[in-house]
């Protein structure tokens, strides 16, 4: 029975667990329950991916109403992959959460934190799994509203303004998406994505189609923090509690990128978007400018969380660059980078979280001599940082390799060169942290211990994954290749 209902259980179990957390209330109990649910979600997501790889598309009709009339959950290789990513991150982070949340959030709010965490997870997985355009918006708002709450739980008062800013931008983005979906519904009379993809081509010549696409795209680009619509991101990541930063950095923007892929390639079709409207003409230069501007901003940051947040904006540039090539290699690179970047950014933010627990600060100036004080944490930070730069034998190398391959394949060697040179900027900003941590002496001689074991475990699982998937690339690259083939309508 479980096998048949996998797609819905994946969403309903975290959804039911969230109100149960409110009823349970007791701190440790709620935490244990949340971790159990996240682990269950991870198991189900893996089962789902295996099933999709074996059998192809899995479809589930909610309430027994068959698509296109009812809401359909439709799982293929791409969203099964993203679901797995989201559930891995959620499950690994719960171990980190117990000590970190106890430190950063007041005891009375713990159960509310876990409720919001589970709701955010539900929303993110719901966006990914659904095959209904309006349902995307509903889940988008579930995840967004809970992430505003999570961000506002940060200790600094600037967390509140950051959350407010994100709320404005996020709601504008989501409303743009609804307008786009509304216009699509107006033209075709359907909301099912697959059905839309069948009916939209007849409307491509109308102005409504273009307006709908424009609203939809701008909305999605705000949500995924594409340069120059990324202004909400650095503050939101900087002042949120450590767990939340890691969770959002690894999942929220990635899921938005998935939505972008789904709408541009599956619903509208690459032909309309890239040949008729030439979106790539905007996408590629904007991605490149985004990579450079965000990396340069990262170099000048004095707060490490903010530095990493700017680096996230730059990395989103790489993913969008890959998508902009509209080729098998480019999309593979983009999708692999989506997965890989989630792993390494989560690992980096967790390392920062460990330091914040002990030092209470993520200011670069306070990190002097940390290489000696917290050697294990800093080792993880450096390893994940190497991956961010794209050193061979780490995941970062794999994704950049495919991106550059795609650029060369298309004959755009200047872009390949620019993408390669931009890695140097990553070297610069990572080096600034390493220099302070390893080559400067601490001002005081306080005794700083390593972070608790549970936090270390989470951090090292993710750091280990960045190395493992850098060497053992079969899983990620193969799945990404199949996903890219599916999006482009060609089988690799």
């Amino acid at each position, binding site marked *: 029975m479980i096998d048949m209902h996998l797609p819905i259980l994946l969403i309903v179990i975290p959804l039911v667990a969230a109100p149960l957390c409110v009823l349970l209330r007791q701190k440790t109990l709620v935490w244990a329950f949340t971790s159990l649910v996240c682990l269950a979600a991870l198991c189900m997501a893996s089962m789902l991916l295996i099933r999709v790889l074996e059998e192809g598309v899995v479809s589930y009709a909610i309430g027994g109403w068959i698509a296109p009339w009812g809401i359909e959950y439709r799982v293929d290789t791409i969203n099964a992959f993203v679901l797995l990513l989201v559930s891995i991150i959620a499950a690994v982070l719960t171990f980190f959460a117990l000590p970190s949340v106890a430190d950063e959030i007041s005891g009375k709010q713990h159960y509310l934190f876990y409720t919001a965490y589970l709701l955010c997870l539900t929303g993110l997985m719901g966006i990914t799994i659904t095959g209904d355009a309006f349902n995307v918006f509903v889940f988008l708002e579930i995840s967004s509203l809970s992430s505003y709450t999570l961000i506002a739980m940060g200790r600094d*008062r600037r967390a509140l303004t950051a959350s407010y800013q994100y709320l404005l931008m996020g709601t504008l983005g989501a409303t743009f998406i609804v307008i786009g979906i509304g216009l699509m519904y107006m033209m075709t009379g359907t909301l099912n994505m697959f059905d839309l993809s069948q009916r939209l081509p007849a409307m491509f010549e109308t102005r409504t189609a273009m307006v709908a696409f424009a609203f939809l795209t701008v909305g999605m680009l705000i949500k995924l923090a594409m340069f120059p619509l990324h202004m909400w991101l650095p503050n939101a990541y900087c002042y949120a509690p450590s767990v939340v930063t890691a969770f959002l950095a690894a999942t929220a923007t990635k899921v938005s990128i998935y939505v972008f892929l789904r709408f541009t390639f599956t619903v509208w079709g690459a032909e309309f978007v890239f040949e008729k409207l030439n979106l790539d003409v905007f996408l590629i230069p904007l991605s490149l400018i985004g990579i450079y501007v965000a990396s340069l901003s990262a170099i000048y940051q004095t707060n490490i969380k903010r530095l990493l947040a700017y680096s996230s904006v730059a990395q989103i540039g790489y993913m969008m660059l890959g998508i902009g090539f509209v080729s098998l290699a480019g999309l593979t690179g983009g999708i692999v980078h989506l997965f890989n970047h989630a792993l390494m950014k989560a690992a980096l933010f967790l390392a920062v979280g460990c330091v914040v627990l002990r030092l209470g600060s993520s200011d670069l100036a306070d990190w002097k001599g940390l290489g000696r004080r917290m050697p294990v944490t800093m080792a993880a930070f450096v390893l994940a940082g190497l991956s961010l730069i794209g050193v061979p034998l780490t995941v970062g190398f794999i994704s950049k390799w495919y991106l550059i391959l795609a650029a060369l394949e298309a004959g755009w060697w200047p872009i390949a060169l620019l993408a390669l040179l931009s890695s140097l900027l990553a070297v610069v900003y990572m080096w600034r942290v390493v220099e302070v941590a390893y080559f400067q002496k601490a001002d005081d001689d306080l005794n700083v211990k390593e972070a608790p074991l549970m936090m270390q475990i989470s951090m090292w699982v993710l750091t280990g994954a960045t190395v493992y998937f850098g060497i053992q690339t079969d899983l990620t690259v193969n799945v990404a290749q199949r996903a890219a083939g599916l999006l482009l309508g060609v089988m690799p």
Partner: protein
Amino acid sequence: MTVGLLNDWACMVLMMIGLYTVIARPNLVKKLIGLSIFQVSVFLLYISMGKVSGGTAPILSEGIEVYSNPLPHVLILTAIVVGIATLSLGLALVVRIGEAYDTIEEDEIIERDLVND
């Protein structure tokens, strides 16, 4: 023809008023009001597309053949709920910001953050 597009025009005007308010007003509450107007304009867009000329409210009763399309109504019911949630969360944030900063004017908040750094 012009009357037929009246709703769309109203929707666009409301949308722009809302968007402008969000961008131009420094007061955080006014920004939220703008955001609400912006969202409401979309409700109008959806509801008008559900109208079938000559149709009545979509409630089953004797002797009525033509109904308006109820689906957009249902969709917008969801969007209204989302709008309420967003607005109250936003207002809650503004209350907390007001308590933490003693002001809800954006420029003053930025000023106070700069002083702290």
